[in-house]
């Protein structure tokens, strides 16, 4: 019989579930347990290590002697945290800001021109091209218009009819000429009608009409 089974038989007897213990092996085991309990009762109590005690007392003494640190917030800290949170939110929500929306916030010609020039380093989607084509009609400053045409010329395959039709609404010779230069290299779209419409205008500079006629003759 295993010790576990011996213990269970003894516990049944102690709990009153069994009236007697006949098995001598069980009786012997019970005697051993009785002796073990008797030995435990006379064992001296374990005392804590005095070295550890001393360290503990010293720690308590040091802690009591030192002033308790007080957490004091600088008055500007909550404001700074709030401002930082707002900035982070703005950055997060502005991630999807379109070039067009950013451009709309600019009011001075120099910053508009800088912005258009910096788009040379950006990936322009079809929507951006459409916006720039429209801006060519809307913007007043000719230097900005020429910069837009210079930018769009690098995305010629994405240009649609709207770009070529915009020639007709331009009145400044240098802008007309910049657009005509893009006409000259247009291979993906037939622009001869736009050129024809343009060349009948009566208000064109002689240099511009000469250039338009040349491009038309080479279409």
């Amino acid at each position: 019989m295993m010790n576990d089974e011996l213990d269970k038989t003894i516990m049944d007897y102690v709990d009153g579930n069994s009236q007697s213990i006949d098995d001598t092996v069980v009786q012997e085991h019970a005697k051993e347990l009785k002796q073990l309990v008797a030995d435990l009762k006379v064992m001296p109590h374990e005392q804590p290590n005095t070295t550890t005690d001393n360290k503990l007392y010293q720690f308590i003494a040091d802690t009591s002697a030192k002033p308790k640190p007080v957490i004091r917030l600088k008055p500007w800290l909550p404001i700074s945290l709030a401002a930082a949170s707002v900035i982070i939110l703005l950055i997060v929500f502005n991630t999807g800001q379109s070039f067009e929306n950013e451009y709309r916030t600019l009011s001075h010609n120099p910053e508009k021109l800088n912005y258009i020039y910096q788009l040379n380093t950006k990936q322009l989607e079809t929507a951006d091209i459409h916006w720039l084509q429209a801006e060519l009609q809307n913007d007043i400053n000719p230097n900005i218009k020429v910069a837009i045409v210079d930018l769009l010329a690098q995305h010629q395959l994405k240009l649609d009819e709207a770009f070529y039709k915009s020639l007709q609404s331009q009145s400044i010779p240098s802008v007309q000429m910049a657009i005509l230069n893009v006409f000259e290299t247009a291979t993906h779209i037939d622009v001869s009608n736009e050129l024809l419409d343009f060349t009948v205008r009566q208000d064109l500079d002689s240099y511009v009409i000469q250039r338009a006629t040349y491009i038309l003759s080479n279409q």
Partner: protein
Amino acid sequence: MKTIQITVIALVLALSTYTNAQQDLSQFNAVSGVYITSYWGDVNVKGVDSKNEFNITATYTNTSKKAKTLKDVTGYLTFEVKNKKLFISARAPKGFESIDMAINLPNHLFLEIELIKGGNIYASNVKNGVEINSLNGSVKLDRIGKYALVNAANGEINASFSKLNNSYPISLVTMNGGVTATLPKASQRDLRLISRKNGYVETDFTLSSDKPIINLNVKDYSKHPIINTATINGGGSLLFLSTENGPIAIKKS
């Protein structure tokens, strides 16, 4: 002796006539900029350090080419202030008449000139930026500060700068004529060069370019377009120089 006396009197009278012809604009001292619109005629603007020296002299030339300095510009020029901007506008021409303007203005003011028909433009010592749109005639700018956006159709552009704002662009665009920009030697710029026809590029600066520049410092008119992106002194704000027909020069001041 009599001849000398007569000459002196004539000079005094001439000077007096000229002085009287000046229209005082000092009542507009509080404006932030001057916006000039003219049709035919030269526009000559000189920036001055004094805030009180703000005036205009106008010379009218009729269709018979007879010129007179206007003692009273009423009927020829209008002055209007809107949003702290002074608008000086010439009347729409009756035939081939022209009005030449000579303006002294405080040099802290911004200057914008639109020349709808033709004439030469000269502006010097304007420190707070200029924007010019001209159809026929040359544009010469001297000691311009902050920035310049110049567009011309038929005429060369020659612009020299001092005390530029390095975050502002410069754009000099003409359809027909050469373009010259003279910059402080330490200027740092991103350069966009376009010369479609009959061009070469002349410069004192070392240009770092994306590709070889045709006829760089070679005075030979190219039959091919010269289109380059380059940097001056490591790059910076934009310097956009463009002509459909003519050379480009970038000089050190």
